[in-house]
């Protein structure tokens, strides 16, 4: 009996393998329903809080994020994603806009400058990918902006 069940399971495993590849998309859809199937805000930048239409560009202002394994870290960031609406544009130049009530952002020649509390700082951590310019405004828990 044990021999039979073991052999049957061995043969079944071949069919299970083939079935799992045939049903791959359905299995992926099932997995996507799992609560952990969301990208950590450290990578995604977190939820988009506000979208600004600035003609040639769309600006996504993400929520403040303080990534930590448990709870929130003391230091975090706010991600700003600038998306080109016209692929012919070669440079990111955007008039000043408000990231939130205390922080304003201006982009000239692909370089974001953040002004907060009367102080302007160039943001260095910038990524450009597929028509998107991404940068992150460093924050601490108690201040709007941490240059």
């Amino acid at each position: 009996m044990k021999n039979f069940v073991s052999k049957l399971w061995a043969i079944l495993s071949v069919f299970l393998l083939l079935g799992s590849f045939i049903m791959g998309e359905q299995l992926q859809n099932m997995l996507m329903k799992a609560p952990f199937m969301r990208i950590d805000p450290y990578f995604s930048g977190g939820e988009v809080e506000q979208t600004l239409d600035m003609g040639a560009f769309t600006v996504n202002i993400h929520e403040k994020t303080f990534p930590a394994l448990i709870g929130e870290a003391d230091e975090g960031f706010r991600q700003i994603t600038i998306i080109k609406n016209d692929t012919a544009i070669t440079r990111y130049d955007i008039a000043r806009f408000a990231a939130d009530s205390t922080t304003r952002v201006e982009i000239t020649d692909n370089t974001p400058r953040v002004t907060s509390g009367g102080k302007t700082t160039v943001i260095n951590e910038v990524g450009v990918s597929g028509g998107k310019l991404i940068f992150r405004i460093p924050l601490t828990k108690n201040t709007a902006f941490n240059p």
Partner: protein
Amino acid sequence: MGNRYKTTGKVFRSILVTLPMFLIILLFTTHGNLAFGSGADALAWAVSAAFFTLIFYLMLYKGQTDKYRAIAFGVSAVLFVVGFMNNLIEIRGSISYDAGNIYSCDIPFCHIVSTMVIIPAAVKQTIIFGGNLQGGFASIAEMLVIVAVAALLLGRAFCSWGCFYGGWDDMTSRIRKRPIIRRINTSFKYFSFAMLILMALWSAESLIPQYCNWLCPFKAVTEGERIVDGLTLAKNIIFYTLFIGLVVVLPILTKKRIQCATFCPMGALLSLFNKINIFVVSPDREKCTGCNKCVAKCPLMAMRKNHVPSMTCAKCGRCVDSCPTEAMNFRIRGTSAKVSASTARTIFLYLAFSFMVIFLGSCTQSGLAVIFKLIF
């Protein structure tokens, strides 16, 4: 005359058993659609389908597992790199990535990352990787499903039959006929478990998959971080040094798969699943003469001194092929030694080779298509 009938019978039997595999190859490499984008694509499909079918037939006809597995495994690993790099160039125009690609979540998810996303997925309920969740090239959902299927059905056999990285040190470990470094402490294989624990904890604490960030030797042949400052230069130096050391030089000197055996956290994780796997490699005590050939030949240093493979066995079949008395064999767990070893082997080959064809077949095809397009 008798021998001729015997050979004809063996050929006929091998063809008969290969036929269903041929259908699996047809089904999974075409996805039921024979309309190819170009002549090079059609030729690549035809060559790769013929190649995998021939390899499977030879495994059955010659009765050797490792010898033919290694050919398919090595060829797939190299062609994977060709296809992968070409795909990256088509998608993003470069084989290197930078912060922009990470924050845009367009990095392909590799199976090794699975070891590092487990703790944050359980504790924080997020995936700590800048990739596509679903859809597109090597999405997170797609790879996690494949990893789960591989872990449950193949266990660590994935490392010898499915891992497109494993093919590299499997190949380099075969370059020399005899090893230059003969005495290696087999306890080094447990270092991969230390790597698994260390990488899982470090990645969870920092929310960054640190093996990929700092230590993956295969960044050297897939996608490296764009060198923009001293830090990224240092990372690239580490990637290339580890690749040359662990994947090229040490395997050549020792004839062991050093990267897979001692360094890969994925291998360690899959070893744990070997405990529940239905297929095992074990010796027939009545036939075993204790010659220790299996111990010496095992590329993953998994064979114990009592000639029973440890949990790190990747079921490559080298010990089975090299056993002079045919004592070592693939077996089905829970069955008595009376259950035919060749039946167990055939069922295992169906499982492992199907996985190889389905998982690596498309990489092989796309790699071949790139080469054919360059030639013609």
